[in-house]
């Protein structure tokens, strides 16, 4: 008996967001990254169009981070120099974008001024040609100042900046609007708050195709299933024409996966868990792979070896299966 392939018909698709701008577009990037645009569930090429490949951004910090040696070891000395570090990420590890996290701005730490922070961003922009994602130090007041300065100093580059949250979205939204950048909207694993935040931001006048959703994922073994179902709901929402859920999604895979004990504890300590190096790579790679299945568009990653695996995984998934 012949089997008819069941194909779902969706009313709508995920919005497309463009990050970065070339010289022709008023920026200085040598390439831009497009994310979103899919008109089907992830990688179901047979019933809709998978418009853009998921992009990977490698994390670079302005001051040396407190990461595990298994990750830091792969970078060597460049970890002390954000410019050289970013170059290595692009040239050696084929990062689609650089995720520059300005932890040096933290008032409890180095407490760098907004101007100093903006300068680091400019330096990295000068060193690499890929688009940049820039986030602050997670101190809301300081971030508002820092990101305003960064947005202004990089006007025309069409960055993706963050983080806007429900209690603190106005300053950063205004900065993104005035200086024409894209914005990360972060909500705590709640589809309704996610949607509310997008409404609040878009009502300030930022176009919907400049917003990227950060659903605040949990790493493998630490709440990933919540993120998985929330992201799936968001994707189904966008396909059902819910405009306020139709943004591409960004996932802080590197941060969440690498704070799991499994990515840090040695085999001596937990013999049953096996070799730490392999385990740490897989912990991050599997977190990413799981979230790709529910529509992650931008993966923020740390471990170069994990990145390599995920790049291969994405390439395989992008093969036609119609």
């Amino acid at each position, binding site marked *: 008996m012949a089997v008819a392939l069941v194909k779902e018909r969706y009313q709508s698709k995920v919005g497309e967001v463009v990050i970065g701008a070339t010289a022709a577009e008023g920026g200085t990037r040598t390439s831009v990254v497009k994310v979103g645009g899919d008109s089907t569930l992830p990688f179901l090429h047979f019933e809709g169009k998978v418009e853009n490949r998921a992009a990977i951004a490698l994390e670079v910090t302005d001051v040396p981070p407190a990461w595990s040696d298994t990750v830091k070891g792969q970078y060597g000395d460049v970890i002390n120099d954000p410019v050289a570090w970013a170059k290595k990420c692009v040239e050696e590890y084929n990062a689609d974008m650089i995720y520059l996290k300005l932890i040096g701005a933290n008032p409890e730490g180095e407490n760098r001024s907004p101007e100093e922070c903006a300068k680091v961003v400019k330096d990295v922009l000068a060193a690499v040609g890929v688009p940049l994602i820039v986030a602050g130090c997670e101190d809301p007041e300081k971030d508002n100042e820092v990101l305003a300065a960064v947005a202004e100093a990089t006007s025309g580059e069409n960055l993706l900046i963050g983080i806007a949250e429900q209690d603190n979205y106005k300053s950063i939204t205004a900065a993104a609007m005035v200086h024409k950048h894209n914005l990360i909207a972060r909500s705590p694993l709640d589809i*309704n708050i996610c*949607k*509310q935040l997008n409404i*609040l931001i878009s009502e300030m006048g930022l176009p919907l195709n400049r917003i990227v959703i950060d659903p605040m994922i949990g790493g493998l073994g630490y709440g990933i299933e919540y993120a998985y179902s929330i992201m799936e709901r968001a994707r189904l929402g966008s396909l059902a024409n819910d405009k*306020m859920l139709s943004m591409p999604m960004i996932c802080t895979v590197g941060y969440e996966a690498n704070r799991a004990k499994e990515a840090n504890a040695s085999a001596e300590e937990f013999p049953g868990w096996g070799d730490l190096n392999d385990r740490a790579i897989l912990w991050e790679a599997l977190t990413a792979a799981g979230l790709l299945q529910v529509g992650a568009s931008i993966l923020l990653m740390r471990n170069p070896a994990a990145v390599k695996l995920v790049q291969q995984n994405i390439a395989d998934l992008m093969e036609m299966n119609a």
Partner: protein
Amino acid sequence: MEKFQVKFMPDQQVIEVEQGTSLLKAASQAGIFIKSSCGGKGTCGACKVTVISGEAKSERTGNLSPEQLSRGVRLSCHTFVEGDLTVEVPPESRLQAHQVLLEDANAALLTETSKDLLTYYGYHPLARKVNIRCSEPTLTDNAGDWTRLSIELKRVLQSDKPLTIPLSVLQTLPETLRQAHWDLSVILTDLESGYTVLHVEPANDRPCYGLAIDVGTTTVVVYLVDLDSGEIVDKQGSYNKQAQFGDDVISRIVYAVDSTENMAEIQKAVVDTVNVLIEGILERQSLTSQNIASAVIAGNTTMSQLFLGINPRYIRLEPYIPTVNSTPAVSAREIGLRLLPEALIHTYPSVASYVGGDIVSGALATDMANSDEIILFIDIGTNGEIVLGNKDWLVSCACSAGPCFEGGGILFGMRAMPGAIERVDIDPESLDVKLKVVGKIAPVGICGSGLVDCLAKLRKAGIIDRAGNFQLEHPSQSARIRATEDDKEFVLAWAHQAGGDKDIVISENDVKNLIRAKGAIYAGIRSLLQTVALEIDMIERIVIGGGFGNYLNVHDSVEIGLLPDLPQEKFEFIGNSSVKGARLALLSQKAWNEAADLARKMTYIELSIGTTFMDEFVSALFLPHTDLSLFPSVEGTF
């Protein structure tokens, strides 16, 4: 234990209490009732008093400022008598001040439709009075007094139902019969199970009365009903004196189960509340308690159990089990209510821990269980009970909206009474404010309808965003938007306009409280609909009950997302449906039987199970809602 005198000012009331008694308790014993929203846990700060002189020990000072402490301000619940004291109770700490119920619906903004179901159910009161004449005993007719009386009664009543008489009535019967020269008025219950003689007196044509009583968490309402004509002769309402032990049912349960003494105290508080109301009515009508033969009480499950002195502990503990849903009738003597001592008090049956007799009573009054149409019945009150259904099925839930709309938990919240702001207009550019105040006097606070309106207008003027966050950087730069030490607020009336020394404000906390309250109600409606897989527009009629319902503006309520966006003509107000249902039962045995049926038929939906309610709740914490397509008539207006 040493005893000391505490003098309360400005009442000049003096009371002697044991050392270590809390000022909250001492005040209650002195007949001064102090607000205690948290139930005496020292967290709400509602029970502030000022110690003018004498010795007291404070165990907790809550969030009192150093300045207040230096003036002698203390939390009365955690301040204990250590010597003779003089204490001042400020008006804002008093229960009466803002909470007297405006029972009469004259000030209502909307007309309420009332439907007299009495004709449908048939007139057959639960108690009645009959006049009879017994034959006098002789040497040849030497039957006992009770035999004599019962034979004559059965003849007059023309019924085979059993007839009983309690011992207490028997004890005085012989003298009564003879004093009356065998010409008698007999008051008796008339129930399906039989007749019970409640009282025998010399023949007279005084009417016999019954009481329909709504015991609300916040307010108590008593109707005096003539059992012969069915007319409501008088009404009286007041705040529930249990409020001194907490604003909501949970804090009262916590208080009640702490000790048997507390339990007795909290029961007495509500019995006292009802007794004071009864006395007021009796005095006005020149009646005595002997004239009242029956009472039907409708209250939520916690109120019913506390009224009857039944341990409510497990109502609030998982899996939320009430002791009893259908309570047997008890005599007035047993619970100390001022009726005929043998009169029966009938308590409306409950459905579950948080859907009680008041809702069953209300549902009976809406007649939804006989309707073909799908009806949504909402009691907009502290507990936020909702019933959905028709003659085929009924589902119910309680969404715990909180006392916001009754003015509770809001800085300047109050009931709809003179001085309450009921409408607000805000110029979107200058942020100038125009107010409409009940009684056209200087404003003293905001009532529920004012709060609903205020929320919509704050949003329209851009003072708050859809999530309720205040916009301190509003382009008007109006001085009305300001930040205080721990909150943000909008000035509705300056102190000089309010005729007081304080500006009347609505704070960000108030706004968030209101959004949570309205979100809870809307989420409850959506959850019930999801349970039966129906859409909002399949609701054919929405009946709104509860004291606040009368003052509610449908348009405003839809605009903030409190009520579904349905055509205005689908909405209907029923007022205090609980007391209406109580009256119906009082006057109709058939209605009373139907109520028991209704309670059994209603399916209770536990909202704490599963993700539905929480999901709906969060999506309703937005103005008007996260899914703007649910509010098509509102979508463009913000």
